[in-house]
């Protein structure tokens, strides 16, 4: 028995007991709308003692009987129920009993599972520094996973759930983010239906799609020859040109906004999609060119030289040899440019006044007023997000490649 080892096991149990009950209570609150107050002290102590029981059992080497984890789980259950007077979430047993039971099971199994994983191989006797650090890292990673998952998933969960609520229920209980099936599908998707029927979102969706696809096409038309020239042809100023292209994407958009606004206003291009289709490719071409030239450099030049020997022109070489070989790069550049154009906000906001040619970004901003209810705003956000996320998940591999290759502008 060493105090240090006992302390380590105890702290592990404490951390997981508290983390587990807090996370589960918040989840329970958001799912049912009932305020579940986590009895963190009780859960912490229960976790602490059950961790000690687990380590003792694990290191005692006793054969037969209950496995160590089951013993820990039972200890935790008993202590938690005693410590919280049989109300671990401070709710009476009658309110949402099924959810409460489920939450209790998840709390105990979660805490026990995390504790047993972290303390796997731990002893109450002396442990080496190596063994202790392994446990520290397991705890840090475990807590890290929980925190990261919550901070990433919670906003998106709230976004989707808020868009499915009605104004009254939102104001009555902001914590109730459950899906209310009793109002039927019409009621559930009312915000979306209203956005598409009254707020013209179908049109915004089309405009956004048109602008994004056109930007991709224009960007490729400009950047493919440019990237090929920079990567394959020798000419004076080659290094300077490829370096200065990189510098372009350090230029802040806000510096360009005032002059472009002034000039486009005079030319009558400001409130038009043509104006956007001039600006968007200009901002994406440097990135696309940079990503593509890196890829073109990786294609063996012998292939192209063979094509030249066989009588192809340069254009023929590009069309018949280089481009077919760089399809993955073209795909990732296209997806990446599509996402930039789809997500773009500043120029769409500054240039577009006419609701007939709003892009989705601009359309959602117009929902941000006190007259439009919050669930409409969130529904608009969902409509803007879903296509990008679908594309992203579908082509994740290409995109991740593109993101790292192009060192994305954000």
């Amino acid at each position, binding site marked *: 028995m060493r105090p240090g080892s006992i302390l380590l096991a105890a702290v592990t149990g404490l951390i997981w007991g508290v983390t587990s009950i807090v996370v589960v209570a918040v989840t329970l609150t958001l799912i049912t709308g009932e305020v579940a107050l986590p009895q963190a002290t009780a859960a912490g102590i229960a976790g602490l003692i059950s961790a000690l029981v687990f380590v003792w059992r694990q290191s005692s080497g006793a054969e037969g009987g209950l496995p160590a984890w089951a013993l820990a789980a039972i200890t935790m259950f008993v202590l938690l129920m005693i410590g919280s007077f049989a109300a671990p979430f401070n709710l009476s047993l009658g309110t949402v009993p099924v959810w409460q039971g489920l939450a209790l099971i998840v709390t105990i199994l979660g805490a026990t599972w995390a504790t047993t994983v972290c303390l796997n191989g731990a002893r109450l006797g002396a442990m080496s520094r190596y063994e202790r650090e392994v446990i520290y890292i397991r705890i840090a990673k475990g807590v890290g996973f929980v925190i990261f998952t919550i901070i990433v998933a919670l906003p998106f969960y709230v976004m989707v759930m808020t868009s499915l609520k009605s104004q009254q229920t939102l104001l009555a209980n902001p914590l109730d983010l459950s899906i209310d099936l009793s109002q039927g599908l019409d009621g559930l998707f009312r915000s979306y239906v209203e956005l598409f029927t009254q707020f013209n979102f179908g049109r915004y969706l089309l405009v956004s799609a048109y602008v994004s696809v056109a930007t991709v096409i224009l960007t490729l038309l400009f950047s493919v020859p440019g990237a090929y020239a920079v990567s394959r042809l020798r000419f004076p100023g080659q290094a300077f040109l490829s370096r200065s292209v990189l510098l372009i994407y350090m230029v802040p958009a806000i510096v360009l906004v005032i002059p472009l606004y*002034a000039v486009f206003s005079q030319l009558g291009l400001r409130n038009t999609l043509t104006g956007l289709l001039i600006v968007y490719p200009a901002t994406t071409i440097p990135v696309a060119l940079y990503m593509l030239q890196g890829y073109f450099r990786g294609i063996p030049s012998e292939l192209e030289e063979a094509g030249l020997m066989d009588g192809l022109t340069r254009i023929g070489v590009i069309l018949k040899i280089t481009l077919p070989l760089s399809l993955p790069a073209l795909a990732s550049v296209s997806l990446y440019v599509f996402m930039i154009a789809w997500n773009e906000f500043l120029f769409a906001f500054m240039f577009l006044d006419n609701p007939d040619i709003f892009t*989705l970004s601009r359309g959602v901003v117009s929902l941000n007023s006190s007259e439009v209810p919050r669930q409409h705003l969130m529904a608009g956000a969902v409509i803007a997000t879903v296509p990008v996320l679908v594309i*992203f998940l579908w082509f994740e591999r290409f995109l991740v490649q593109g993101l790292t290759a192009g060192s994305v502008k954000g």
Partner: protein
Amino acid sequence: MSAQNQNSESLGPPKGVGPMQRREMWLAYLMLAPTFAIILMIVAGPLLANFWISVKPVQLADLRPPTVLVNERVRGGPEAAGDSAELEYRLRNSSQEEEVRDVVLTDAIPAGFDVTALPDVCALDESALTCTIGTVEPGWRERLKIEGTVTEAFLAANRPERASKPVIAGDADNILTSFDFTLDNFRRIFSAEEFWSVLRVTFYYTIFGTGGALVLGLFAAQLLNTVFKGRGIVRGLFLFPYVSPVIAVAFTWVVLFDPFSGTVNALLTKMGVVSDPINFFGQRAIEYSLFGIPMEFPLALTTVIAFEAWRYFPLSFLFILARMQSINTDMYEAAEMDGATPLQQFWYLSLPQLMGILSVLFLLRFIWTFNKFDDIFLLTGGNAGTRTLTVDVYEQGFALSNLGAGAAVAVVVFVVLVTFATLFIRFSPKEEGL
């Protein structure tokens, strides 16, 4: 070609630029031309134009150049064919300060209107009316009356004067192209009390936003640098904040942290963590005292920085993960044999290997965070002590309608940025290939 060269002067390789190389050079320039044309037009041009605008007294309203406005109507109420009527043009200079020169009105007389008398300045050719008005004063108003009789065709048509719109031509000084310079814009922004606080906020935002995103990214990369089931899904999930449209995530944060109906505040108050809801995006500072010294915690700024770190940690996470997976595992095996503990391995092996990518990421993100406009604009609109330089450009140029002052702030942004970019070029480690 080389065979010929060897025959003629067998003295080593050819010197100078050969015809083939020249052809290649021109091809390269030709292929790059469109890219450079559009970049010069949309990026380099406006950059220079921004300097130009920053030294001009130009307001948002000046973008509409002064012109003569015209309104056409029929007077006299003709009821039967042969009645006399009047075609009246009301003209007005839209500007109260600028004159308009060489004003000419052209229009087509409506069908069925027989002109009997014309003002002196006007001339009629068939049905084409041309009135040469000349230079008009600021705030000038005038009515041109054309008398005539109407026929059946005129009466039958619905508002026949609308058939052709009168066209006005005229020249006026455009403030944007004149040679009228001033340093007022710079004087105004530098003497404004809030400018220095804006600058300070910008640096806080940039430094802590960048640092936060990097630290979170490093941590997340550590989490995913092991093989486990569902790793791809978790990696995809962690990238969500970065790939989603900024409007969607920014408004979600606003709704989430809303003091009255936001989930976070409801959770905090109902669970008894705080007694009153916190206005995360609206409250400038929380006062507290540390050892008796009153201090201020900039709440809104911190929330905005948290958003920045949240939204951009996926980028640093991706890069760091990619770099970590390319580190040779032999090194770790050797360290393991030598008895290095996991934390020692991280500190003495992983971190030095990651320094290169971390410094590049820091510089890149530093510049991009400095350039960021959308996030703060959507979250707080630059209120509650969160106005950065980029938001100030918008504030001056569009909210206060003073384009010149906005451009002057943009010049400041650009100058600071060039300083950073110079540092970036000088210190970027070449081997990272960025």
